[in-house]
């Protein structure tokens, strides 16, 4: 049977008067980086792909695990079984949803070294990540290069979101001058999360994204949106008193230490996960083919196009193309570095 043409694919969105055909064309011509493709990022990427945003860059350092499936809507059991990198798994599912969208999956860490490459050449950055170091890095990049970004966070039954338009709204550092130290804030792993909390926050981020991309930045909702789903309250906190703050280190004084790499960490314990991520210190990266060959002799090794996984000394190693490894079975960063040196060696 001949399939029906997809000509009215965006008709309902175009019929919404504030977008119209003109707004839809702007969405098609837009380029977005989604940083973190987990509970927030999968909903954001799915929504923007369905909305017809022309190009999505999906950045995530992690692999799909069983505990993700409860809320991370672009993944399935096969992804968890094979430990597929989240960026790749999300791209695969998005290609089935809307083939007209160009999706570029990038399974690596966003840090000071990679930010210039990974965040350049987009109209908007949308936050789906799970830590403040990365958000402060995005904030630095956004202000220096005048690219808008949208902050979102969710935990338990709560969440918050804020849109940052450089030069027009307060930035994240106006609100939080220094990021809470690693381990000081509850995480989804330690405090849990219900899917509707992350889905609502991601939907609010997506709505803000659609406004900006459709040329309606004027409609961006100002302030900090705060949600508590368990007692059914939401608030919008007015941040006008933080506008044009000359004392803000980022938007007032133009200091960008996360982007310059003087602040922020590169080797991290994945909080509450009983796992540590180790990044090779050599800036030029690793020889993947050689690494794969060397590691393929390990007993019980699994090889996929994206990673090599093996067990040694009772720990599970997942090694990625960029030489990065997630070592499961410990949260001790020093031990993880020495395990990396012993079993991966670069």
């Amino acid at each position: 049977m001949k399939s029906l043409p997809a000509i009215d694919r965006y008709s309902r969105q175009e019929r919404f008067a504030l977008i119209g055909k003109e707004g839809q064309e702007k969405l098609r011509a837009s380029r977005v980086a989604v940083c973190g493709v987990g509970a927030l990022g999968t909903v954001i990427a799915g929504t923007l792909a369905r909305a017809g945003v022309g190009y999505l860059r999906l950045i995530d350092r992690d692999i799909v695990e069983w505990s993700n499936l409860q809320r991370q809507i672009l993944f399935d059991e096969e992804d968890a079984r094979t430990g597929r990198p989240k960026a790749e798994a999300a791209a695969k599912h998005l290609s089935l949803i809307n083939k007209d969208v160009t999706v570029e999956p990038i399974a690596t860490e966003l840090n000071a070294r990679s930010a210039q490459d990974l965040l350049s050449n987009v109209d908007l950055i949308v936050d789906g990540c799970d830590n403040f170091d990365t958000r402060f890095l995005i904030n630095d990049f956004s202000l220096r290069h005048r690219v808008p970004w949208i902050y979102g966070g969710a935990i338990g039954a709560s969440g918050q979101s804020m849109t940052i338009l450089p030069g027009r709204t307060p930035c994240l550092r106006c609100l939080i001058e220094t990021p809470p130290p690693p381990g000081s804030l509850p995480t989804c792993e330690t405090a849990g999360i219900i899917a509707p909390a992350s889905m609502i926050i991601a939907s609010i981020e997506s709505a803000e994204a659609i406004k900006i991309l459709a040329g309606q930045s004027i409609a961006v909702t100002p302030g900090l949106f705060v949600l508590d789903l368990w007692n059914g309250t939401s608030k919008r906190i007015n941040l006008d008193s933080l506008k044009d703050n000359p004392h803000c280190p980022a938007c007032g004084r133009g200091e960008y230490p996360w982007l310059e790499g003087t602040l922020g960490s590169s080797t991290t314990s994945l909080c509450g996960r009983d796992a540590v991520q180790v990044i090779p210190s050599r800036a030029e990266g690793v020889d993947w083919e050689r690494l794969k060959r060397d590691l393929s002799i390990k007993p019980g090794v699994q090889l996929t196009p994206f990673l090599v996984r093996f067990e040694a000394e009772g720990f599970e190693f997942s090694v990625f193309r960029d030489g990065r490894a997630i070592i499961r079975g410990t949260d001790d960063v020093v031990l993880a570095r020495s395990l990396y040196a012993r079993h991966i060696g670069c």
Partner: protein
Amino acid sequence: MTEYRVLLFAQIREEAGQESLPIALPTNATVSDLRKALMERLPKSASLICQSMIAVDEAYASDNVCLKEKSRIACIPPVSGG
């Protein structure tokens, strides 16, 4: 003394086991005084309260802002998960 009802959010609310807390403070107390009093009342959440935003009448309030008798106050911790 003035009694304020402080709305709690996210982990602070969960750790307190209630949506709001009554806090009594001397007249002309500031946001900073309120933060200290909250930390004493909820010692388990002290570090989170220290990093939290205090909103007065649904607007961001810095530590030196003076509270008024009928101020509606909320304690909102940063949310990192995603």
